[in-house]
């Protein structure tokens, strides 16, 4: 509960400060134009942006789940002893196969 109160306190404080420090601004059209070193764009910048390492991102989402298991594992690691090391070793070994596969397929580069 204290955690929650403190964290929301900071968040609310920061949001309030930002709304006071950064009031609604208005700019003329020439000032608002995006900076391109004097050049002009044809379209809005917001678009279906081609994020190149998308395959990496998907591998990352799956791999990152391992964190969920590792935090509680770390807490009981010493009391469970070598068994804990072995089990997490196996878990990470399984996931590493996926990483190795992805690496061989070249997913850690820009597509």
């Amino acid at each position, binding site marked *: 509960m204290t955690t929650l109160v403190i964290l929301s306190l900071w968040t609310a404080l920061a949001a309030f400060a930002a709304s006071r420090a950064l009031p609604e601004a208005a700019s003329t059209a020439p000032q608002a134009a995006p900076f391109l070193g004097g050049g002009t764009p044809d379209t809005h910048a917001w678009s279906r942006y081609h994020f190149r390492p*998308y*395959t990496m991102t998907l*591998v990352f989402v799956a791999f990152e*789940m391992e964190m*969920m298991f590792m935090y509680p594992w770390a807490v009981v690691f010493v009391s469970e002893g070598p068994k804990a090391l072995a089990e997490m070793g196996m878990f990470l070994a399984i996931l590493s196969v996926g990483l190795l596969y992805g690496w061989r397929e070249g997913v850690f580069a820009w597509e």
Partner: protein
Amino acid sequence: MTLTIVLLGAAALIGIGLYGALSQQSFVMLMMGLELMLNGALLAAIGLWSLALGGMPEGQLLAIVVMAVMAVEMAVGFALVVAIYRKRQADMTESIGTLAG
């Protein structure tokens, strides 16, 4: 009382998620609806674990499994979207229906 509030919140999340999953034309927005339903499931799991089941350890594990399901759903779902988009310039659910042939 607390449990009732939590479970009602979970029910509302599941209801909105269902609405979203059914009403959205786009496959990626449909996934948002699914995630929202899983969010409701997560909330219910946490509430039941903490307030009705006396903190049995399997309850927390259930919450983790729900999150793992979300990660898997997202990774596979978006991989499918990429594969289908590459094949046909389509990301609408209706268009995916015609891909069967």
